[in-house]
């Protein structure tokens, strides 16, 4: 079946994205990693839709695509503001909200 390698690929992509998110300190790279994780999840939906022969998976993919676009536009705005204020893109520098 086609779905099994696709799922393995999705898991690998998700793992890579997660590692990138946790290890990179540059906030732009963290956003990139987030996109990879989102696409991995979308790929898993496509694989599921193909496995059961239903359109739901593809619909979910479209949703995730829209969500990713919206998320990126908001996130890039925040990144712009952060770089204006802090003159850096280091995520560890933005730690003023301590409990």
């Amino acid at each position, binding site marked *: 079946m086609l779905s099994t390698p696709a799922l393995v690929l999705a898991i690998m992509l998700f793992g890579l994205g*997660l590692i990138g998110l946790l290890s990179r300190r540059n906030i732009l790279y963290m956003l990139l990693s987030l996109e990879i994780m989102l696409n991995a999840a979308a790929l898993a939906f496509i694989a599921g839709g193909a496995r059961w022969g239903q359109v739901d998976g593809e619909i979910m993919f479209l949703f995730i695509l829209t969500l990713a676009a919206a998320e990126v536009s908001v996130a890039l705005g925040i990144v712009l503001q952060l770089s204006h204020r802090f003159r850096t893109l280091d*995520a560890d520098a933005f*730690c*003023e909200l301590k409990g």
Partner: protein
Amino acid sequence: MLSLLWLIPVLPLAGFLLLALCGGRLSRYQIAWVGCGSVGTAAVTTALVAAGFFCTFPDQESYRQTLWNWIDTAGMTVGISWYLDALSLLMVAVITGIGFLIHLYSAEYMAHDDGYARFFAYMNLFVSAMLTLVLADNLLLLYLGWEGVGLCSYLLIGFWYREPEYGTAAQKAFIVTRIGDTAFAIGLFILFTQLTSLSIQEVQSRAVEAWPVGSNPAMIVAVLFLIGAVGKSAQLPLQVWLPDAMAGPTPVSALIHAATMVTAGVYLIARMHYLFALAPMVQEVIAVLGLVTLLLAASSAVVQTDIKRVLAYSTMSQIGYMFLALGVGAWSAALFHFLTHSCFKALLFLAAGSVIHSLHHEQDIFKMGGLRKQLPWTFWTFLIGAAAMSGVPLITSGFYSKDWILWSVWSSPLSHQWIWFGAVFGAMLTGLYSFRLIFRVFFGEVRTMPTGEPGLAMRGPLVVLAFLAITVGFLEMPHTLGHVTLFSDYLSHALPATDLLPDMDEGSEAREQLAVTVAALLGIGLAALLFLPGSLLATRWADQSPVLPSMTLLQGGWGFDRLYDRLFVRPWFTLTRHPHDMLDRGYEWLAVCAESCHGWMSLTQTGHVRWYAATITVGTLILLGLFAL
């Protein structure tokens, strides 16, 4: 016309709401109109209702009006319903009539006070609550009014809240009466569990059916109701709040602490008279309490130096007479003394207010004197009030009401000879302290120059009340003098008649009256001898007044304040101030736990976004692992 009954308590309530909600936007003129007008229209409505009531009176003895159901649960129906009979009509007439006069007086007396709207709002609320109390058809509604008047008393005693001691006096009044109110509430609970009703009429028929004379539940409920009445009416042993309550403005003392609220206890006992008839021992206790209170208060009144405190102690003493009358079963006599007392005591307070007003809030009688020429209106009205209080024979109302009480005490089978002797001694003390005030304040040399007579709004109520203080007594005259029985005939439709011993005739009544008259005149004569400037003893004591050790005891009201301070207040404060409270330990441990947990949790809030991502990942993995297992 009877159907207008619901308007009587509602009108002052409407006045209160109007003043409380938009009193700040009204001018002083408008505030006075709203404040006096609401009570005035209530008085006019009372007159209309009374006219309707008397049209059918002897045939139809009572009228009931239900507005709506207040509480309706399984086995308990309590309505907002009014009950009008001879007793409540009398109370309503006094509350609205004298209440209106006092409101009119306050319009001028309080004219320069900052809290003008607040004052009238509280006063209107008080009148509304008091009317609820006396018109209530069931005991729960009565209790609502009972608590309402307590609240207004607190608010008005502490009216000048910027003085800390006035606030303390207000709290004292509230807390001490609360002891009585709690007992009253427990009495209501017991009454309801035993008889499954709170309607006054139903309770009456069921109690008489279910409880034999002297049975335990009747005794317990009667005792609890008595404690409630004692707290409200400032009788022994809960009397300590009334002298301090004089901290409020003088019209408040006249309305709440002389004419109406403090007599609520008398009303309660008269309303529940069948209950006390079922508990004869409790009724004896009422008589003894009344007697002891009237003697203690009268003796304290003789040595007070503050004009309002003299009147406060005299109020306690006169209510002691009412309790004495209730205790010997002379229900109508107690209510008659209530009627005359509310006229002459309101008059005395208002006249005293006029004196205080014109002397720039001076209340010490040793700094007054010679005001007879300067304030003739005030002098004559005060003189009439004092004469009525001391029971000057034939011409004053106080004579007829006090004489009726003392005659009942003499001739009732429920009484004893020594109670009568005590009460007659009290009558002598009444004459002594009333005329001590007259001689100190209005005779002798001028010590403080007054600003002049008060205006028409203050003088008018004084004259009307002085007229009433004389004429109200003619409603009821004894066998030996005219034999008028208008009042007792009227009240006989609501209250049972007084039992008399069989061997009482007019001869013994005349001898008894002579003794009472002599006692009152003796008191006045003694006052003239001791306090009239220029008299023998007054000149001898002018330089050094004899300070007896008993005087300080009397001035402090027989040391009850100090006793309660030692017994209750101080131990309680010591207990609360103890640093190592056992109970607090448990709660402290809880607080420490919560604090340390909070410390640990806040460690995770580092502000690093990658740390959050990592914790979310780990948490999700753990949850997935748990589901997989």
